[in-house]
């Protein structure tokens, strides 16, 4: 088993290095000169001061040294948590711009993924043994998963925000308020958070429920369930075993879902104008802010890699079949 994890770690490590390198290369290969854009932005018309400014910015962004040195500097800076300076939010460092947006994204995605997983699995398991629920709730689940997310999100925003007017349709909090640790502000945050959260919760719910229902039915029809029943085991025991075995692949699925947590809410954040990483990513692209773009992508890459590794670990540990298979020594 140790060998398996060492190999996985190696693969993830290599993926990380390659991803970071690509991350380094892409903005530099892109057309357009970020410094020139900074200068036009700050409308520096004077040629002389423009030259001075260019020198200053080149130095600041570390663009005045050979490429290989830039690359090494990039890595060195990375390990110090220095992701450069944002052009779009100049002079804020990329790391702090990202750190400001990250909590919004996490607050949206973590609860929606976890809650939809718990509720979806419970619903699916119930549907597997209840004809009424199966015939009633499951078609709704199918519709929900089939509807394009964008469409659903817009519909929710329209109904909840405009038609009923219960919820605000844009922003992370009211612009009238300044962020503070007060009840008013927290309530306001929650008020803004609810619709985007609901949209994510609802789309994910159907998928988990349908998956769980099919898994439980499969387990209930498997040989070991039949054997238990032939020996007179009560339904309680048979269902408990079936549920436990059915939930194993769902746990791996959850870990994989969490992998997209960091970059996963792009559409949501755009539709609800929510100030998370997704919106930030869009801003970075629109403003050709390559350093910020780099920083965000790096976070996404790290998120995906960490949670995928977690999924691998969970997958192996949670199921004795895979766990024992690995202890046999083969990878």
């Amino acid at each position: 088993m140790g060998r398996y994890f060492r190999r996985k770690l190696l693969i993830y490590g290599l993926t990380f290095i390659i991803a970071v390198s690509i991350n380094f290369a892409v903005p530099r290969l892109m057309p357009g000169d970020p410094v020139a854009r900074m200068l036009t932005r700050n409308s520096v018309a004077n040629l002389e001061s423009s030259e001075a400014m260019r020198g200053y910015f080149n130095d600041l962004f570390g663009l005045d040294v050979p490429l290989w040195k830039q690359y090494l500097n990039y890595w060195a800076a990375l390990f110090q948590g220095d992701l450069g300076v944002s052009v779009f939010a100049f002079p804020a460092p990329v790391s702090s711009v990202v750190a400001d947006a990250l909590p919004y994204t996490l607050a949206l995605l973590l609860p929606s993924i976890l809650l939809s997983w718990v509720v979806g699995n419970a619903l699916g398991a119930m549907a597997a043994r209840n004809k009424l629920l199966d015939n009633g709730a499951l078609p709704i689940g199918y519709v929900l998963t089939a509807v394009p997310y964008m469409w659903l999100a817009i519909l929710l925003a329209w109904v909840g925000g405009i038609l009923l007017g219960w919820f605000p349709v844009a922003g992370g909090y009211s612009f009238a308020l300044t962020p503070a640790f007060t009840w008013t502000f927290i309530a306001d945050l929650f008020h803004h958070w609810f619709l985007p959260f609901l949209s994510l919760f609802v789309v994910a719910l159907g998928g988990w429920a349908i998956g769980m229902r099919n898994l439980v039915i499969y387990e209930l029809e498997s040989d070991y369930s039949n054997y238990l029943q032939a020996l007179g085991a009560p339904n309680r025991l048979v269902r408990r075993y079936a549920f436990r075995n059915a939930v194993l692949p769902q746990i791996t699925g959850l870990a994989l879902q969490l992998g997209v947590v960091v970059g996963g809410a792009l559409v949501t954040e755009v539709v609800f104008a929510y100030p998370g990483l997704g919106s930030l990513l869009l801003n970075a692209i629109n403003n050709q802010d390559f350093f910020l773009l780099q920083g965000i992508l790096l976070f996404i890459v790290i998120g995906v890699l960490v949670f995928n590794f977690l999924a691998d670990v969970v997958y192996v540990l949670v199921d004795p079949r895979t766990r024992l298979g690995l202890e046999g020594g083969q990878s």
Partner: protein
Amino acid sequence: MALEVEGLKVHYRTVKGDVRALDGVSFSLEDGEIVGLAGESGCGKTTLGKSLIRLDGRMRHMGGTAVLDGTELPIGDDRAMNAHRWKEVSIIPQYSMSALNPTRKIGKMTAELLRSRGKSYRELKDELVRRLELVGLSEKVLDNYPIELSGGMKQRVVMVLSTLLDPSLLIADEVTSALDVTNQKAVAETLVRFRDMGFVKSMIVVTHDLSLVYQIADTIMVMYAGQIVEKASAETIIKSPKHPYTKALIGALPEVGLEYGDERLKSIPGKPPHLLNPPTGCRFRDRCPLASEECETEPPKVAVEAGHEVSCWKAVD
């Protein structure tokens, strides 16, 4: 009389109509008797075995009775049947290799199963270990997951588990088909030992391997298209069968290594009838070399001698 089955009818509900997998099956079993159940694939052997312990969702009990040790089994009533399962009737299923929950240690699963039936694992543990050792397994398998055991070991675990509560009747469905020759012999001998040691009173051994069942069975029943066509002592069935179908099965076989399977039956022209709409009269008629006009009506069950019953018009000739 341990088991007395009378006119048992069990159908499968399908969209095309009822498949009459068991169409009036009658037989009886003495205490301590091992009966082999043989017949072509699809003739209803598994259906018969399952009918005596648990009907699956598509099976319907259409008539007939099964009386075990003087009590009628509530075949069609899944809930009422539960009290009899494992304690009075038990089964070693055709799929023994996958019969154990893959994510539970064997000991833990056994404990949970016993507890759910109101039995104490602690009280039965010594007996369980003793029986495991009897089939050549150590106590350690209780700490193993099924995946850690070989196919043969899993089969033996299932054999011990199924008979742990000393059922009166055991149904062993194709227990040897998935094993190699050495294991087949060991399993067959174990079944006999279980009977001799009183773990089970009587046994129905469903099989494709006539030579194997000949070695362990006292009696052999031959099934054809949902009915029992001949029943006699193992010796008689192999040496002097009376029913044309049994003869076709046996006669074509070499004396040693009596082995039969579907390949053998290809030498009998034709196929068994479909059980959706079985023909009237003798069901073997289309393929029978002796068929004549009288065979268009249902043949009577004739006792050609004590304990030898044949359902054929020509049985006495």
